């Protein structure tokens, strides 16, 4: 990037001379920036200003409304260091010279798309809607999304309203494939979403599984059976223990009004032992 910076400086110089020759007064400031960056690591982004309208009181680097760097030197050149050019760091970098009025230049860091599947494996219920989503946060945004289904090593393209069941909705950073209704025979498999922008293209794979309607039925029946078995065991155990329990209740001096009414009818059972 040193070459680029040097070339920019030379260009700047030439422009200054030109402007100076024309008398400079009232001409807009000219900012020269690094040309588009598409790859590399430890990249430096330069902005050089010539013909500033007033004294330079500082600089700022801004990306998407976040101030990345700021200082208050009065240099005609400001530099921003980029560790690596990738999807996350791609975007528009605005260098701002704090003059009165402020002057800006833009450096475009562009990359080819890095497409990610929202979920690598999707499930859907038979008869319900299946939604497969891919996203891409690179700059510049994707201009074209395409979907394919992998069938025996071919890639079948899918377009909106294929078979009346497939619907594609796309935007610059996201695409959605909806399958309504899901068919358990035809629909499971791998789907590929492909995104293209002016730098290049990339794709991601999403695998779709369709659950049968009755998938949840077996665990359900299993648990109900377990509940019935346990309840039966508990009641049988209790019936078997009942003779013992009755003896236990007669223990020392308690006065239970027993559930069998016979005790009362007899009325000669002296249960209360109050002293």
């Amino acid at each position: 990037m040193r070459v680029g910076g040097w070339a920019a400086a030379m260009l700047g110089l030439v422009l200054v001379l030109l402007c100076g020759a024309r008398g400079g007064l009232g001409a807009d400031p000219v900012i020269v920036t690094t040309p588009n960056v598409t790859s590399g690591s430890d990249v430096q982004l330069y902005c050089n200003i010539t013909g500033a309208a007033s004294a330079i009181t500082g600089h700022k680097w801004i990306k998407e409304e976040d101030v990345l760097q700021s200082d208050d030197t009065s240099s005609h050149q400001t530099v921003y260091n980029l560790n690596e050019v990738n999807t996350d760091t791609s975007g528009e970098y605005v260098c701002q010279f704090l003059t009165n009025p402020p002057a800006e230049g833009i450096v475009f860091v562009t990359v080819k798309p890095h497409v990610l599947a929202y979920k690598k494996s999707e499930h859907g219920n038979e008869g319900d809607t299946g939604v497969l989503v891919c996203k891409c946060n690179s700059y510049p945004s994707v201009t074209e999304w395409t979907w394919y289904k992998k069938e025996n090593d071919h890639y079948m393209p899918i377009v909106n309203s294929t078979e009346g069941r497939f619907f594609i909705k796309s935007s610059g950073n996201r695409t959605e494939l909806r399958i309504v209704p899901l068919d358990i025979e035809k629909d499971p498999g791998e789907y590929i979403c492909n995104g293209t922008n002016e730098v290049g293209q990339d794709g991601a794979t999403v695998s779709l599984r369709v659950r049968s309607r009755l998938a949840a039925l077996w665990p359900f029946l299993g648990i109900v059976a377990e509940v019935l078995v346990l309840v039966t065991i508990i009641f049988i155990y209790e019936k078997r223990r009942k003779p013992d329990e009755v003896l236990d209740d007669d223990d020392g001096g308690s006065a239970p009004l027993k559930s069998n009414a016979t005790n009362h009818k007899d009325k000669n059972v002296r249960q209360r032992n109050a002293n």
Partner: protein
Amino acid sequence: MSPPVTSDLAYIPPDGGWGWAVVFGASITVGFSYSFPKAFTIYFKELQAAYKVSYSQIAWITSIMCAATYGGGPISSILVNRFGSRPVVIFGGLLCGIGMVSASFCTSIVQLYICVGLISGFGLALNLQPSVIIIGKYFLKRRPIANGLAMAGSPVMLCTLAPLNQFLFDNFGWRGSFLILGAILLNCCVAGALFRPIGPATGPIQKEANKEVKETAKAVGFLAATEEEEDKERCAKFNQYLDCSLFKHRGFLIYLVGNVLMFLGFFAPIVFLAPYAKHIGIDEYSAAFLLSILAIVDMIARPATGLIANSKWVRPKIQYFFSFSIAFNGACHLLCPLASDYAGLVIYSIFFGLAFGMVCAMLFETLMDLVGAVRFTSAVGLVTIAECCTILLGPPIGGTLIDTFGDYKYMFIKCGAVMVVAGTFLFIMNYYNYRMLAKEEKAVGTKDPEHGRTVNEGSNNWDSEKMQDGQELEPLTDEQGLKKEVNGLSEA
């Protein structure tokens, strides 16, 4: 100065044996009742997408469920008074199961409100109260431990249900999950089967017995069959189902007011802990981990509190211990805004978990302690329906405070202040109550030394006074008076 630790039951509770099986069953039902609404929130996102409604409309499901669980308290009490715990719990388990299974076939959000909210919620109400009631019937000396263990079911179940729900959802989708959850809730029926009835016959049979006794007495001329007597009988009949004379019971009223106040600030901090953590910049997983810490500490704190509350130093003064834990809880919340980083929040979560567990473990134990096991059935129903309002209002008020001021600290201050006030109120009022009880003991003690002695000769781990709450003596003496008449009759 002692609580009515003597049993107003007409038998000695086993304090062990099959009681532990009952505690196990109770921990399952209590666990489901408390943790099911919380664990259900995992499905919200998917349901929101499926029915295309807003978050607050989905959140109504759990609100309705909680309202049904707490509002169904009195009905639950009436049913238990009539049928005993076991049938009610089994029926409750069936209701829950049916509710969830029908929810898996729902096609609109209103149907979900009914199936999940009302039906399952009411089923959970029918599970919760009888479980707590039957512990009072099986335990006396070890009742705090039993209560602590049963209430410990809630965090354990929460820790199990939350990942289980996620797993079910990933593998079966939300409809399949509801189906399976319905089956899982049927396990409450198993817990109910464990609730073997104990003690004298409840409700109708006892009523019959009393009636027979009275008729014989009237025939022989011992009692005058006046209009007043019949009125009293009708009142007594209704009171057998839902004891409204509790509203004249001093201890009950103190408990009611204190708890209703406390619940205003009880649940809101849990609801807002994770959002607060995210607000101060902690990532989502660490924020969720705070709740896990809370649950784990809670799990240990509940049985531990039960043990402490059972010790001979604390049990006679258990009401003070309860008020202390409420105030401690409040103090934690008041100090929370001082925690500005993750370590601070972890410490807060630990103390909060501890305090939360302490309060929950003793929630029903103290009520049992105040009103006695027999009237507890009705008391718990009346208390839960009163608490219903403040429980439901607590989090939304907290949410409004957060939205208005844009700062979480006011919500914590409000919760903390409310709980400290509630704790102090309970402390002072219980001091007054204990003194009044001591006075009443002395008064009754001089009148008739044999009064109020039910079967306590065996359980004398307690020191000195074995008197019950003064007002409670009345219904019992009537009964005993009648019994004496009968016995006198039979001897003749």
